[in-house]
């Protein structure tokens, strides 16, 4: 039996009926057409599917859409304001924090929660906060620099 849900995604309220086994990531990608959130491993390991659930970074491949009824979700599509990139997005661009870009949306959402809680993280704190996100291209070095860039810009 389908269940009715009301979810606010990037500030827009959506009311939909969903099959209980529909995963949040598929709800975002296939129902709402928000394909910025990626599916890497589908086994809660890689973090490519990271979104914010009521402000907290979570892996949307391991959550049912039905569970987020009444919640607020933020995806990578919700970060830019009036066509201007969020400092994290700008940081990944400026510091070459991506190569293929597959991991990037998840990296940015995980880094978003970090900077929200700790506006001035050390390098070790950045690496620790991104432990749930795999990148198979960059070697992480420039990702750390990208987050540092954003922290600096947000604190300016």
């Amino acid at each position: 039996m389908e269940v009715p849900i009301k979810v606010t995604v990037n500030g827009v309220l959506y009311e939909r009926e969903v099959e209980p086994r529909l995963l949040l990531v598929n709800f975002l990608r296939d129902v709402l057409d928000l394909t910025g959130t990626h599916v890497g491993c589908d086994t809660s390991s890689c973090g490519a599917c990271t979104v914010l659930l009521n402000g907290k970074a979570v892996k949307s491949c391991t959550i049912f859409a039905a569970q987020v009824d009444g919640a607020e979700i933020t995806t990578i599509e919700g970060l830019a304001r009036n066509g201007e990139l969020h400092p994290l997005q700008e940081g990944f661009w400026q510091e070459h924090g991506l190569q293929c870009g597959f991991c990037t949306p998840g990296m940015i959402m995980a880094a978003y929660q970090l900077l929200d809680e700790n506006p001035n993280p050390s390098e070790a704190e950045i690496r620790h906060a991104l432990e749930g996100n795999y990148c198979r291209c960059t070697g992480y070095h420039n990702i750390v620099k990208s987050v540092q860039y954003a922290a600096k810009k947000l604190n300016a």
Partner: protein
Amino acid sequence: MFPAPFEYHRANSLEEALELLARFEGDAKLLAGGHSLIPTMKLRLNTPAHVIDIRNIPGFAEIRRSGDQLIIGGGTPHAAIEKSAEVQRSASALAHAAAVIGDPQVRNMGTIGGSLAHAEPAADYPAAVLAYDAQIVAVSAEGERTIPAGEFFVDLFTTALEEGEIIKEIRFPVDGDTVRSAYLKFPHPASRFAVVGCAVRLTMDGNTCTDARVAFTGVAATAFRDEGVEQDLIGKTLDDAAIKAAAQQAAENDELEFMEDHFASEAYRKHLAKVYAERAICTALGR
């Protein structure tokens, strides 16, 4: 990967969750953080006809202090335990264990009740719960009962919980002025679960240890208290030599059902138990 179809129910109180469990008798699963259940449902190792979501029950994720007890609601996420100033102050080893579970995303969803009920042999909380002699409070249609941590972990993925019971809360004695506690683990480099995790809770009179609780996870089929190490600490002045000597007693009980896999052999796990016992004791004592 999608799980087999099921019906979703959201419980708004523990009573409602218990009613639903009774109604679907054996064909329902509680869903808390979902970070153990959903992966097994995707693999179709679990195919419940009904899923009862208990994550949004008001008051189920509360951390409170009552006299010399710290009471943690069964639905409290790992991240809330890790970041709680009250837990950091009054049960350091528990805060340490919560902080090293998986990664930030896992800690935002996973709950202590779910972790204990799942009883994964490499999970972090079991060692801390044993080192505190915590009391696990289970509710069912019949009422409430309290299960001492020492009786809770029965076997691999098996606990003393009965069908139809929900972990309502876990009660920990607070670390008083004389207590030093810590949890330290060697994480598996890929999964981040504990290859070996050690929780210690020492009662000190100056430099002399008057009581000791040392518990391991990851080493055997269930977490266990290591009386060999405990007995070797009690009554001793804890200098470097005494700590080292006590740590060497770790995982020497032949009755343990040791875990062994392609990553860590039994011998390696025993070795790590000694190393982590020493490190956890030193961390607890601030050395």
